[in-house]
């Protein structure tokens, strides 16, 4: 047993750390440090910097543009990226649809889509959830009917993150209305500019527009846009959601946020002393740091397991990463809110309806409101507990 990184791993860490230090555009870094959102253009620029370096899809197999790094290196890379801080590559492309395409897609699809995902030439969005189908995703109703070599798609998706920017959508559609729940679903991708696609933005409680309703009204999609086999979409969706969970601990990001808390709490005053000197506040912060340390090690255990056993099925213990990771991220936004106190109150709408005038306090309350999402999406924390109860505890 040895919890330290090897010399080679440490050298690798220094290499990526230096790269991030030298290459993240300063304005992007500043916005992230202050807890602001990055815009589409910023993410495109950053992804292209990464892609030029060969790191935009680091975790993909080498033949599709990946790096061939070990799971430990992948872990170090993500951790350093988040803690730099640098924007995370668009998950819908690189972590979700990309792996589904290179695992289940045909050669033509791999050629057509994968390089464009790596370079963020296509902005992808995820069309899974529907108004009647959230946690119970398999109850989805959007249909795709085959007619004259095309799928005709009708229905509605919702909570579709950043669909307003999207060029492409990957969608779960019911192709066999007779089959029982899970078995009649297919995984279909198509152009968001197709005729019959309507996007309606939804404003979230932080004031931003992060999610949308997406309506499909007789949208015609070529049959070659089916990924894998017809009616096997549920298997691909499960594969995709399993991949989503391993990245969800976001330890590096939480470390970076704690640095921000410490920085603000050392300057924001309560009377004659900074907030960080308040024993009650400091204890809450320290307790969070300890939980995060434990989570970091738990994550390393999951990674080490993956190194040993290969990346087969997702480890059910990774549900811990989701539950604790989101819990810590939310606590951190609470602590930031507490540091800011009454200065968090002014609400002025800015770009995209977001409350982001250029002062340090303005992103704090929206960040807190926005982060209630992390225990809802990606399989809600209650669903994660169901998974543990079933897969680990055998209940």
């Amino acid at each position, binding site marked *: 047993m040895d919890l330290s990184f090897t010399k080679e791993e440490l050298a690798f860490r220094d290499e990526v750390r230096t790269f991030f230090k030298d290459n993240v555009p300063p304005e992007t870094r500043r916005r992230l440090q202050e807890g602001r959102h990055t815009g589409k253009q910023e993410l495109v620029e950053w992804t292209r910097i990464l892609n030029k370096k060969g790191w935009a899809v680091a975790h993909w197999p080498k033949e599709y543009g990946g790096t061939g790094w070990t799971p430990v290196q992948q872990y170090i890379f993500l951790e350093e990226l988040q803690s730099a801080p640098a924007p995370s590559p668009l998950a819908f492309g690189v972590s979700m649809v990309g792996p589904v395409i290179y695992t289940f897609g045909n050669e033509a699809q791999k050629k057509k889509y994968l390089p464009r995902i790596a370079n963020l030439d296509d902005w992808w969005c995820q069309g899974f959830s529907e108004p009647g189908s959230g946690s119970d995703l398999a109850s989805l109703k959007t249909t795709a009917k085959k007619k004259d070599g095309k799928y005709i798609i009708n229905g509605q998706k919702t909570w579709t993150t950043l669909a307003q920017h999207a060029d492409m959508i990957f969608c779960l559609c019911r192709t066999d209305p007779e089959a029982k729940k899970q078995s009649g679903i297919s995984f279909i991708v198509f152009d968001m500019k197709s005729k019959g696609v309507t996007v309606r933005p939804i404003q979230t409680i932080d004031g931003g527009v992060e999610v949308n309703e997406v309506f499909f009204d007789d949208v015609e999609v070529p049959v070659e846009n089916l990924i894998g086999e017809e009616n096997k979409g549920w298997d691909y969706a499960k594969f995709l959601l399993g991949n989503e969970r391993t990245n969800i601990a976001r330890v590096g990001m939480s470390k970076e946020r704690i640095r921000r808390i410490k920085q603000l709490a050392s300057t924001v005053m309560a009377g004659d002393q900074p907030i960080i000197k308040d024993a009650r506040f400091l204890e809450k*912060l320290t307790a969070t740091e300890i939980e995060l*340390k434990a989570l970091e090690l738990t994550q390393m*255990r999951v990674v080490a397991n993956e190194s040993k056993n290969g990346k087969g099925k997702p480890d059910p213990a990774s549900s811990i990463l989701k539950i604790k990771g989101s819990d810590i991220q939310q606590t951190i936004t609470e602590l930031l809110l507490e540091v800011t106190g009454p200065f968090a109150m002014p609400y002025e709408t800015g770009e995209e309806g977001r409350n982001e005038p250029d002062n340090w306090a303005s992103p704090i309350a929206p960040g807190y409101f926005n982060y209630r999402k992390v225990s809802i999406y990606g399989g809600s924390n209650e669903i994660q507990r169901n998974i*543990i109860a079933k897969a680990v*505890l055998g209940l």
Partner: protein
Amino acid sequence: MDFDLSEEQRLLKESVDGLLADSYDFESRKKYAKEAGGYSKAQWSKFAEQGLLGLPFSEEDGGFGSGAVETMIVMEAMGRALVLEPYLATVILGGGFLRHGGSKDQKAAHLPGIIDGSKTLAFAQLEKNSRYDLADVSTTAKKKGAGWVIDGEKFVVLHGDTADTLVVTARTKGGQRDKTGIGAFLVPSNAKGVTVKGYPTQDSLRAADITFTNVEVGAEAAIGDPENALPLIERVVDDARIALCAEAVGAMEESLKTTMQYIKERKQFGVAIGTFQVLQHRGADMFVALEQARSMSYLATMAGGIDNAKERALSVAAAKVQIGRSARYVGQQAIQLHGGVGMTMEFKIGHYFKRLTMIESLFGDADFHLRRVADAGGFING
């Protein structure tokens, strides 16, 4: 980065688990607790035969030269079985003083007896008002000729009523809470002026309050520097905290297992209560608490090898916070999910809860260690 056990460590784990599975079920434990001294001498001899008592000592000293991971393996197993024997007091604490600070002669005088199981030790440290501050020592050791005269009172000395030799912290210089001027002395428990009042503890183990009145010991009694033993004391106590973290992980693991087994079998409303989602989620949260604690126990175990006291203390303190919090949650929920039977002495689950509760406050509770981590600036800086 590697969380695997080596081949030798795996064999050790198998043999300890095997030994305890054969001879340490809950009914046997009840019998052992009723023996004179509150534990089984026969078990202790078996531990010696299997080499467990010599594990951390160097081969030169007659031991096996094993590391922190081996101790963790043994302590986890002992936590799972709720072992009563004085392993912590004798091997980790008493033995730890000799291992980290003992002279050649002191080692020769004491280690063979520890390793072959014929002698036990105990650590007399806690005072009436010292609470968790290791530097708060008002027991005195005054120079007399070449030797020392010890006066003072020590409380809740783990296994103090059966130990052959006590390691006593005493002030040789300075004020009550000064960090310097503290010594650690080897005192035979039958020395003139030593009064031992033994009693059972809440978790069915034993402890003693011990009074020292004009107790005379020779120059060879002092372990290390009699005027500056605090770093040694901190070192040994950190080892004990690390061992307790592992023991707690073992006890939590068994608590969760037993509880999940119980709710799968217990029927109410015509179904197994384990089918109720509210209990399933409680189980999931217990699992999360256990695994977070296990991660920190690993961190602490690895920190055991760090000589830099500050760095080591940060990891050990953080681990003790996590273990304290997890232990409380897992312990309380294990009782809750058992319903009425969880409240009884007859059922083993209550005994796990009681042991976990005692571990929480041994050598610093979660609040104490949280303050230490905060004072050290936490893990994330710059």
